[in-house]
């Protein structure tokens, strides 16, 4: 028997892994992937909630999350493709022509 805390804890762990990747990795490819990991973790949380209460809300939310993940990834990838010419190796730290440090 699975108690709902276990998948919820797993979701939290995945969320934190995603955050870790987002904060630590310089390559924009990995940054996008980390966001996907975080969204996916949230999806797991919805499924867990659906399981706890036995209703379809969780699965509906997951569909919407997939929606967002796809759309956001498409935009992100296009921007990365465009940036490739300017920023070697897709180094996120190099994308800083907009800044306020004189």
């Amino acid at each position, binding site marked *: 028997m699975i*108690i709902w805390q276990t*998948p919820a804890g797993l979701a939290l762990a995945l969320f934190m892994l995603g955050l870790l990747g987002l904060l630590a990795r310089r390559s924009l490819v990995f940054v996008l992937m980390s966001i996907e990991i975080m969204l996916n973790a949230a999806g797991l949380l919805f499924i867990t909630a659906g399981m706890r209460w036995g209703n379809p809300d969780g699965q509906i939310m997951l569909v919407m999350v997939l929606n967002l993940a796809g759309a956001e990834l498409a935009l992100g990838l296009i921007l990365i493709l465009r940036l490739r010419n300017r920023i070697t190796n897709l180094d996120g730290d190099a994308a800083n022509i907009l800044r306020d440090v004189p």
Partner: protein
Amino acid sequence: MMITFYVAASLTLLTTALAITRSNPVHALLYFVISLVSMGVIFFTLGAPFAAAMEVIVYAGAIMVLFLFVIMMLSLNKVTVHREAGWIVRSVWVLPLFLVAGLGSELARVFLGGGSVGMIRVVSPQEVGVRLFTTDISTVELASVLLLTGLIGAFHLGRKER
């Protein structure tokens, strides 16, 4: 069921951890795909077969393949992978780990409380479909606009200048 769940959960954790630490993006992405597939298994064990199918077909099968194609288009070679590896040094992880540990420990507290254990009720695809196409029909509409927005944005940004 329980064993399946735990196996899949460990696999998910492991492959996700691998995904964020690899230096070769293609490898990382493949790890992530595995993590998504095992996530689908988890969904199934949690009584959400529809979500499990979606996760595997749409997320792992479509979205991640898109990701993979783009990475291949970026034509990353050995040099870039090598440079990427050079960025993954221990010092890079210190601050993020510290912050993540802070947030994680705060949030982990809320799961520690006791909860009820009940039978898992399988919420069938039919149930989900009925909801989606009756009461929640307007959310489907909104979701379609969301996708359309992403599409138009990507279409415009991907286009050459006039």
